[in-house]
């Protein structure tokens, strides 16, 4: 996708499975919103092909739109109507019957903490409340695929959690979600798989666990023993998958084992301890965070691009 001479999305290729939450992660300006705009038929790709629900986004946009829901990044609302009026009108636009509209309005006002503000017009709401209204509004109608473009921007942690849980609930009912964010903990909480995008190109696409393993470097297993046994170091060093072992300088019988796949190495460590008859009193795995992986990937690819 080009904007003049700028390539905003460059040969991106991915597929989203039915019923999953697919995270599209990237820094600001990475191409997330442009991708969503193409998939929701707002922008026509300058080249390539994209399908949603098996339908072409260029030639079959009219068939796609009634089956999707979209929370866009830009705030949007009917400025002259109350919160309740906004929800109701949106329900009318989506042809939701009156009785069902009333039911959904009450549910959403409750879930999104907007009951007190039901008669208030959006210009008088806080930024967070307006965002909650915008997200809640999209649940007034049913859809098969939901596109959420940084839906939690401006929300406090509690509201963010409520929003993500509500999205999860919809996924359990069969909705597929395409979710963009640059908040990694959010992605870890809700996404089944993620793609990391920067400068319009996908840098990685997999489950979070696999991405951490592939790109996050090593995990660290912290161990503490009840008694000193110098054989432990030697035996552990020879284990398959262990990169190195560092004993604590504090003579407290603790050591750190560095391994690419901590979960695979752990049973072998326990076997060694059992064989040598040493008791493990503390065991803790420190995995690389998605934040670390994300920053490392974005920075290194950015550097490569500039070189």
């Amino acid at each position, binding site marked *: 996708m080009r904007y003049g001479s700028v390539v905003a999305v460059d040969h991106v290729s991915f597929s989203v499975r039915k019923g999953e939450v697919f995270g599209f992660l990237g820094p600001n300006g990475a191409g997330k919103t442009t991708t969503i705009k193409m998939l929701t038929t707002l922008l026509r790709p300058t080249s390539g092909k994209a399908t949603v629900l098996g339908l072409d986004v260029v030639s079959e946009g009219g068939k796609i739109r009634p089956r999707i829901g979209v929370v866009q990044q*830009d705030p*949007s*609302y*009917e*400025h002259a*109507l109350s919160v309740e009026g906004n929800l109701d*009108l949106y329900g*009318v*636009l989506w042809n939701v019957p009156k009785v069902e509209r009333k039911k959904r309005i009450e549910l959403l006002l409750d879930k999104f903490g907007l009951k007190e503000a039901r008669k208030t017009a959006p210009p008088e709401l806080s930024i967070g409340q307006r965002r909650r209204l915008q997200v809640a509004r999209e649940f007034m109608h049913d859809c098969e695929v939901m596109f959420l473009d940084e839906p939690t921007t401006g929300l406090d942690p509690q509201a963010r959690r409520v929003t993500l849980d509500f999205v999860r609930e919809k996924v359990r009912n069969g909705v597929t979600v395409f979710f963009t964010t640059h908040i990694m903990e959010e992605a870890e909480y809700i996404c089944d798989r993620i793609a990391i995008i920067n400068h319009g190109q996908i840098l990685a696409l997999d489950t979070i666990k696999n991405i951490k393993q592939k790109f996050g470097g090593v995990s660290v297993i912290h161990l503490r023993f009840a008694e000193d046994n110098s054989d432990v170091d030697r035996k552990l060093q020879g284990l398959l998958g262990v990169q190195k072992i560092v004993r604590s300088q504090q003579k407290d019988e603790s050591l750190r084992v560095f391994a690419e796949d901590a979960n695979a190495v752990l049973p072998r460590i326990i076997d060694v301890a059992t064989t040598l008859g040493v008791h493990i009193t503390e065991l803790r795995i420190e995995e690389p965070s998605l934040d670390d992986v994300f920053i490392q990937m974005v920075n290194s690819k950015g550097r490569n691009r500039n070189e």
Partner: protein
Amino acid sequence: MNSFLRLLYRDLKASLWSTKSMIAVQLVTPLFYIFVAGFGYASVIPTMSVGNREVSYVLFLAPGVVVMQIMFAASMAGAMLWLDKRLAMFAQIVVGPFSRWQYILSKLVSIMLQGMLNAFLVFLIASPLLVGLSVSIEGVLYIAASLVLGSLFFGSLTLAISVFIKSNEAFNATLNVLFTPLMFLSSVYYPLEKAPIIIQAISLANPLTYAADMLRAGLLQVYVPLLPIEIAALIAESLFAFAIATAAFRRVKP
């Protein structure tokens, strides 16, 4: 309800209904035109010869004021699109179960309805002047065509302008600059038969003249000699303006 009617409902509820105080304010101007300026000028121009009849100046002016109301109401179409773009509702609507074509048509029909409501209210206000007038079926058709085509032309015009102009201030300024000559270089305030030839020539290319003359034909049975041509021209210009607005609308980036 089909998609177009749902969009129309939205326009009426979210845009026009919310500006109901604005509609009331818009009625103040025609009141002044008809009851202050109209009667003021009538003291020096008691009656005038238009087409095939002699009419009082106040009666001559009233239909002109109504079509002016239509023109001002039509500017709401552009303003509504402007607001929808600013509040990102345009992008939200066009990712919904609607086509852009339905969106633009809902805007035009909603301003048509608003224009007709305004016209009805002006007629109601001016009703003491209209006592004794009888309107035939043919007259009703003239009146309806004048209001519908006038709304379509000016609504399409302001929609097209709102696509190309980047700021709200520039949009309002452009309409002011455009509407002033349209009002005065037309048959809204005076009959064209005795106007200077250059004013006649310009005014006869003005859709506001056509709409005013059609409305007078319907309401007062006053027929200017070029009325059949004016009707054809207003139909053609309204359709052309609608085509331009639709083409311009494709350029709107959500």
